[in-house]
């Protein structure tokens, strides 16, 4: 941990757009306060680039408080940097030492094309979500409070899965660039709850199909995803998704059979 201001060397992936090939460019980050967040450090570097009339480093960010899932930097060989269970915006420069060289790369996945530099297009996640990651609420009178009973353990487990912010660190860390941790968290947070039951079987099929169409890889239960997840989503979600998917595909038939009901 450093006390005074730090001088760092950054190796940053620069890429003009999706079509052009990118390369690493080295920058000096000087006089960096250890209390800055990683993104604030990049802001400082960008300001100096703008003053020099150079193209600033493009990176995604929004809330900067670890809840939006926009920041997505692969720092020194790990999504969101060296610390566990935090996002890049929650990473502080005191986690690095003075004089260190930091390599910053974008998420690497065919399904996340690079928009520019370190920013990737993660709308594949949106399309998976849109394929079934919702419950259809029929509006009507306000139901009584607690008319739908949910056991505490189920509520807790569903909320654990629901903490996924969709940053894509799981895909970035997975050796197969698989999106199964994200998809399974989005499927099973609803599948666990009573409100999610009516669409439970069609949801898992639709979302898995969309995930396949986006060109993500396949899970090998290695567990790199859960190790880097800023929200500590567990592999259990994937097993739960598999269980639901096989139930839906192999043991449940959801269509009306002809012949009955003529009386």
């Amino acid at each position, binding site marked *: 941990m450093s006390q005074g201001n730090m001088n760092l060397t950054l190796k940053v992936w620069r890429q003009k757009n999706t079509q052009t090939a990118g390369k690493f460019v080295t920058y000096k980050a000087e006089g960096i306060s250890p209390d800055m967040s990683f993104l604030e450090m990049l802001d400082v570097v960008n300001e100096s680039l703008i003053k020099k009339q150079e193209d600033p480093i493009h990176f995604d960010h929004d809330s900067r408080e670890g809840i939006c899932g926009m920041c997505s930097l692969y720092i020194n060989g790990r999504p969101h940097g060296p610390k566990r269970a935090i996002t890049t915006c929650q990473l502080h420069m005191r986690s690095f030492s003075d004089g260190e060289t930091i390599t910053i790369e974008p998420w690497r996945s065919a399904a996340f094309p690079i928009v520019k530099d370190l920013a990737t297009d993660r709308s594949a996640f949106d399309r998976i979500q849109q394929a079934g990651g919702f419950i259809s609420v029929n509006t009507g009178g306000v139901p009584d409070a607690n008319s739908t009973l949910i056991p505490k353990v189920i509520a807790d487990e569903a909320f654990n899965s629901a903490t996924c912010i969709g940053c894509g660190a799981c895909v970035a860390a997975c050796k197969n660039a698989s999106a199964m941790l994200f998809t399974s968290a989005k499927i099973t947070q609803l599948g666990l709850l009573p409100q999610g039951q009516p669409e439970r079987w069609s949801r898992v099929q639709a979302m898995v199909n969309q995930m396949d169409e986006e*060109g993500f890889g396949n899970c090998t239960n290695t*567990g790199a995803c859960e190790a880097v997840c800023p929200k500590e989503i567990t592999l259990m979600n994937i097993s739960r998704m598999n*269980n639901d998917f*096989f139930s839906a595909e192999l043991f449940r038939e959801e269509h009306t059979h002809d012949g009955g009901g003529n009386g």
Partner: protein
Amino acid sequence: MSEFKQTFNSSLGKKLIMALTGLFLCTFLIVHVGGNLLLFKCDDGFAFNSYANFLTHFPPIEVIAYVLYFFIVLHSVYALVLTIKNRRARPVGYAVQTKSPTSWSSKNMGLLGSILLLFIVIHMGDFWFTYKYKETLGFKEYRTNLATNVTTVSDYKPEVATFERSISTENNVEIVRVKDLHSRIQWSFSHLWYVVFYVIAMVAVSFHLLHGFQSAFKTLGWVHKKYDGIVSFIGTWLFAVIIPLLFAAMPIYYYYLTLVK
């Protein structure tokens, strides 16, 4: 595309096939290692040769054997398809990667599987193919005196080329004439490089199953606090330690026998 095809062409469908064929191959290993323990019996291969004869002449086993060969092919082909798809999912790799807290075997299943496939081809070519289709294998005659229970062994030359086996009893002496796979094994395992190759292959089995057995249950979605511990215990101790050790002990034991002779 039919709904059936769609199920098995999905990412999870392919993984289901990997898991089910993998678990079938795991159960086969239990039977295979159990039967082959007869190799440790010092009876000039009487028990082992009789067992090999039984396996190749009992119709249900022959049917299951072809299911097994089919599953080995299916497991390999699906592994290849999934690996190609996984590579395509990340066309540009990372410049820097830190050590992840994940197991080595889980990241090298393809490498381990390729070693195993090579091993299976050589192993089957050497014993299974030789036993079934080659005429180089001789026959042994075991004469057991039923009164004293003493067995003597001698080479046997069949009178007809199509001879496979015979069991008869004459004057209170049981005569068993079977193909002599045992001496082929003795010959194979008298070569050091061959023994080393087998031991390396068993190390690959160990690491492959250390991840594979437990991973199959996760893929199937059979994860529960009640039996997770049992699955992990069986996957580690039975499939990654005991079975590979027993298998590896066979070539080592036979090589040792040729040394002390």
